[in-house]
């Protein structure tokens, strides 16, 4: 039998420390907060699952969650088809293609808070180009006091900011389709729609799924842009989950409920990512099977 040297454990110590300080300890602190009522630095009362129960029953949280789901659903239903449409209409090659790609990628290079600021000014009904223009057309528009206008502005901003990501991914997927597929489809007499449905969409599905996952996570955790643009208002019309959480934790210093809430939030995202991941894996496996057999 080989001698066992327990000193070897020290070799993994750096990693253990790193992970502990960057993930495990903060997470456990949150778990710790979530089961206590913290009245002051030295006054803590163990309350068990009380905060979780309260959080689940919190009508404000329900509102934020519903708004969050509507927001994420809306931007996904706009961005994915629009991104595909953009990718399909981009020039396939040559300098026009490069130019279009660079222009398209621009919004992706702008930091979130700058995007928020751009749209905050752009949409202002007194000095903003878009705000003034819309009002000049006789449509009353003011995102600071109309919930609908605020919603529209936030959604349009997100679409402007993130549709290019989907378009670029879809474009990459399209470019990977061999020319022979299009030629075969022409010989088979396929319509434009059939080409999209049976060739382009299946071949793009891999990258689109990744795009969907990225956009889901990002939009579900959106914070900076609405914070800069509307500050969650008017009222709490555009207060989404992360903003609500920040209000609770940093604004009101309700550490217990905020901790319980962030754990639930974390679990929702984890669950969604797990579902996506499983789906992706399955998709990948069936692709491997078909390409692994010599093609």
């Amino acid at each position: 039998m080989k001698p066992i040297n327990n000193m070897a454990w020290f070799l993994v110590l750096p990693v253990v420390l790193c992970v502990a300080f960057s993930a495990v300890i903060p997470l456990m602190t949150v778990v710790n907060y979530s089961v206590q009522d913290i009245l002051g630095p030295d006054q803590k009362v163990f309350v068990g699952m009380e905060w979780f129960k309260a959080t689940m029953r919190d009508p404000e949280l329900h509102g934020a969650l519903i708004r969050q789901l509507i927001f994420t659903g809306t931007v996904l239903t706009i961005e994915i088809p629009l991104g595909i449409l953009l990718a399909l209409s981009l020039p396939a090659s040559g300098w026009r293609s490069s130019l279009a790609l660079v222009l398209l990628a621009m919004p992706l290079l702008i930091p979130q808070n700058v995007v928020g600021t751009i749209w905050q000014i752009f949409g202002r009904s007194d000095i903003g180009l878009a705000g003034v223009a819309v009002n000049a057309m006789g449509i009353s528009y003011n995102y600071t006091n109309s919930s609908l206008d605020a919603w529209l502005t936030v959604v349009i901003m997100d679409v402007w900011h993130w549709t290019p990501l989907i378009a670029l991914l879809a474009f990459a997927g399209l470019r990977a389709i061999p020319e022979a597929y299009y030629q075969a489809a022409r010989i088979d007499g396929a319509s434009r729609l059939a080409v999209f449905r049976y060739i382009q969409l299946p071949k793009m599905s891999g990258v689109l799924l990744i795009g969907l996952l990225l956009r889901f996570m990002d939009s579900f955790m959106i914070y900076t842009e609405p914070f800069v643009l509307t500050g969650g208002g008017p009222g709490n019309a555009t207060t989404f989950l992360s903003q609500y959480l920040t209000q609770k934790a940093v604004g009101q210093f309700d550490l217990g409920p905020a901790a319980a809430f962030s754990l639930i939030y974390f679990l929702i995202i984890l669950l969604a990512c797990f579902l996506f991941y499983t789906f992706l894996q399955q998709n990948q496996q069936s692709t491997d099977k078909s390409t692994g057999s010599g093609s």
Partner: protein
Amino acid sequence: MARIELAGLGHRYAGNKDYSLQPQSMVWEDSGAYALLGPSGCGKTTLLNIISGLLVPSEGRVLFDGKDVTTLPPEKRNIAQVFQFPVIYDTMTVFDNLAFPLRNRKMREPEVRSRVQEIAEMLDLSGSLSRRAKGLSAEEKQIISLGRGLVRKDVAAVLFDEPLTVIDPHVKWLLRRQIKRIHNQLKLSLIYVTHDQIEALTFADQVVVMYNGEVVQMGSPQDLFETPAHTFVGHFIGSPGMNLLPCKADGDRLWLGEQSLALPPALAKTLGGIAKPLTLGVRPELVQVAAEGEAFDTEVLRMEDLGTVKILTARLGGELIKAKLGEHDTVVTARTRLRFVPERTMFYADGHRVA
């Protein structure tokens, strides 16, 4: 079924001043099995895409049974094409794949069903009709691609663009035999593009050899072997390829380097009238060791024994000559005299055969 005629057909890709396909005319007879043979980049695929309509030629016309189809799109031409890499509609079943061209043409569903069944039977696909096409092997996918071409009753010709490239070697011959069988059964016109001479010679009744965008010879495998019309054909077909030696005709004598032979008067007259540099071509099979009579004196370099044949490599002047000798022939000396079978020796000027 159709007779395909190319009239003055040539093609230059946009922005390119050199021809990818030299202007030329030719006829492909109905229900023939043709192989289009040539090295990569010689214009085979360009020619094929023009016939199928994927490409509109920059000049000349394409006629199917005398009808001008030059500008007709592929879906209106009744052409089926099988590509180098199998094209399959991943999300569909095998049945739907085969039915796709029919459904696109708005055929009624009961007819689609019976037609697909019929073709599936022919291609031994009946058992896997309900399977998803995605998980199939490369050769099965190629068969389905072929099937998608064959389901249309009116198909005039089936074009194959190096269809066996991605197929495992041990199933290549199976697939090739299946294609051949279907050809015999349906009497379809087949055009089969390949750069593999064995594939071309075993598959086709007529082989069309292309070189540098030009069809240099169209003929049976035997023609290609016995009377290559171009030095490229001589060199490309056969193993080893034809011996090609620069030569000079001077009056009634033929000079190869420092040595000369008498020429028959008729040949001397033909060759004498050609100003361009001449090349003599002779198959290694037709180079013989001569004990006496008129022959060239050569220096023996090496002898390779391939079992049933021996390949002799000898030097004549600055050129190498290969000769295919029988199993029992032996050359032991350092020099030997070689003769070329006179009536089977060809002469070329500028690559093209002159005598």
